[in-house]
């Protein structure tokens, strides 16, 4: 099913090393739209990354740093990058070899279109 978010996720997944791109509800962690390679567990990434992003946002607010706009989690076997609006966040699952700088710029640009 195609939604108005399809161009955003399809643009993101074209980056080398990106395995999936999703638009996710910030509060509930549910997928609104996704473009995923086969084998990527979108639901788990959506739920857990939204939760982490919420935590980072609350913590940074409480620490006096203001709201977070971009988050990157690097692990031994991959990365997850997130950027968001107030209601929706973009979640990108990628390999460690991805060009994070380029992805970050595009994520932040795309996130500006989110409510």
């Amino acid at each position, binding site marked *: 099913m195609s939604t108005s978010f399809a161009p955003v996720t399809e643009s993101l997944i074209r980056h080398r090393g990106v395995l999936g791109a999703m638009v996710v509800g910030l509060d509930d962690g549910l997928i609104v739209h996704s473009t995923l390679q086969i084998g990527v567990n979108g639901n788990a990434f959506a739920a857990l990354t939204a939760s982490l992003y919420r935590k*980072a946002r609350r913590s940074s607010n409480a620490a006096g740093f203001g709201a977070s706009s971009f988050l990157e989690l690097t692990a031994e076997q991959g990365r*997850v990058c997130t950027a968001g609006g107030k209601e929706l966040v973009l979640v990108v699952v990628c390999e460690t070899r991805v060009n994070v700088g380029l992805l970050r710029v595009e994520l932040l640009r795309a996130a500006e279109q989110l409510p």
Partner: protein
Amino acid sequence: MANDDIRALSEALAADPASLAFVPLGEALRRRGDLEVALRVALRGVERHPTRADAHDLLARISADRGDLERAIVEWESVLRLVPGHAGARKGLGFICFQLGRLEDAAAHLSAALTIDPEDGSLAAALQTVQSELAQRGTSPARATVQVSRQALAAAIDVQAAERAALLEAGVRSSPPTIGLASQMHAADDASTLFDDLLEGQRSAAMLLDADGLVLAGRYVTADGRDLAALIGAQLSGVSDEAARAMRHLGLGAWTQIVFETDAASVAMAPSQDGVMLVAAARPIPLGFVRRVLEHALRRAAAWMREGG
């Protein structure tokens, strides 16, 4: 409160993180002098229950005991927005205003508190102290410092605070933070300055936190000289806990780094032995620089730990 009671409250809170057990638990820890742990409990309580006045009141009292007067003021003002007739908040603000030499404000807050709670004899005594000082100031307008004994006012408000103030006035630094002297930076030691040379002046900070989010080394010094490392560490350490939880389900192995950008800062953190290394920098500082500082700081932290730091 006995240790068993604290343990029971801790267990109740662990079983149900949304419960209100954090209020008596945080208060018990504060009274016992475990201010850093109390702070973490209170911060998480406020995070979960931002509209509860008792949560903000608890955080304010802990902040005051830690000497973080600015935070205490913010929290007690939050209490008053939620419960305009909160005598405890008025009392606390009165005490802080006195500490800061704002005697008129102190008198106003204490008067308001006394109106709300006329039975509280300590308030009347505190107000009398402030009014006496105001009268003296009236006869000696050039006076710049509050010369009334802090101990006298503290005694009227909080017995434990009085004890700390007495130590303070005697020139003794007690191990728990002393009330009202937060803004005076303690002498920097090796641990607190461990990462200073890696940083870009005062616009960035590096901290090594233990598994409980307590600061092992490093500092976060604001432009006005206050060290907010404990507060920042307590707040942001929860992010790494959340990351560790997520990694158990995502099949990506262990997390090695988290970077996030906020309105005011770029923050990078990475696991370090049993704790977390955290670097924060004001937004104009590029994210790549923050990551590099994090890598350098991690190596230095590891060396410092090996040397028994």
